[in-house]
């Protein structure tokens, strides 16, 4: 049972336009959400996160929106740049239980920025 879903395996966007990556989750216990970016043959790099008490978090060109009622989050990148071409993973965590916080990842979306 996939608890974090990224339904678009790939997305192509023109340079300078907005990229919108989507993510849905099913586990209502998740209270912390993250986006990671991954280049081939490298480890994922943390991009931005959002707590369930917020509905928006912004960091430079990156904004994450959270809609708890719909169990949906999205990552907006504007303007898109060639270096943004990578695989983006959505991840979620339940931080309420104590101990370590393993992340549950989606399968990723391959973003391609076209010149």
């Amino acid at each position, binding site marked *: 049972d996939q608890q974090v879903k990224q339904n678009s*395996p790939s997305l192509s966007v023109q340079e300078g336009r907005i990229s919108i990556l989507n993510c849905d989750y099913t586990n209502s216990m998740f209270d*912390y959400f*993250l986006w*990671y970016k991954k280049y081939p*043959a*490298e*480890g*994922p*790099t*943390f991009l931005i*996160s959002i707590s369930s008490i917020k509905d928006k978090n912004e960091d430079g060109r990156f904004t994450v929106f959270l809609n708890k009622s719909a169990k949906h989050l999205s990552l907006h990148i504007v303007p898109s740049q060639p270096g943004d071409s990578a695989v983006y*993973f959505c*991840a979620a965590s339940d*931080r309420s239980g104590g*101990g*370590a*916080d*393993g*992340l*549950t*990842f*989606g*399968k*990723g979306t391959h973003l391609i920025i076209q010149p």
Partner: protein
Amino acid sequence: DVKVTQSSRYLVKRTGEKVFLECVQDMDHENMFWYRQDPGLGLRLIYFSYDVKMKEKGDIPEGYSVSREKKERFSLILESASTNQTSMYLCASSLKGYEQYFGPGTRLTVT
């Protein structure tokens, strides 16, 4: 800057061999994790640890074990490597409740 290092970037082993993957972090993080990444499957959690000598199973622990004797070091052990364990292995660390930082990964091929 947080630094997570993994002992090898590429590794080739034979079926049945015992394999050790080492991970070291330099930020005094309590939590450490091992994931594997496979095409079309994303990242899947194998094991994690929230303290020295503590370990917890993740989603896919079968065929793996771990060791955490020191806070900064977390080892993944394949007791008897099999071809279906060919994958990219990623180590991560974090403070409790915060984002995880990943190492560069080890591409393991089992022949």
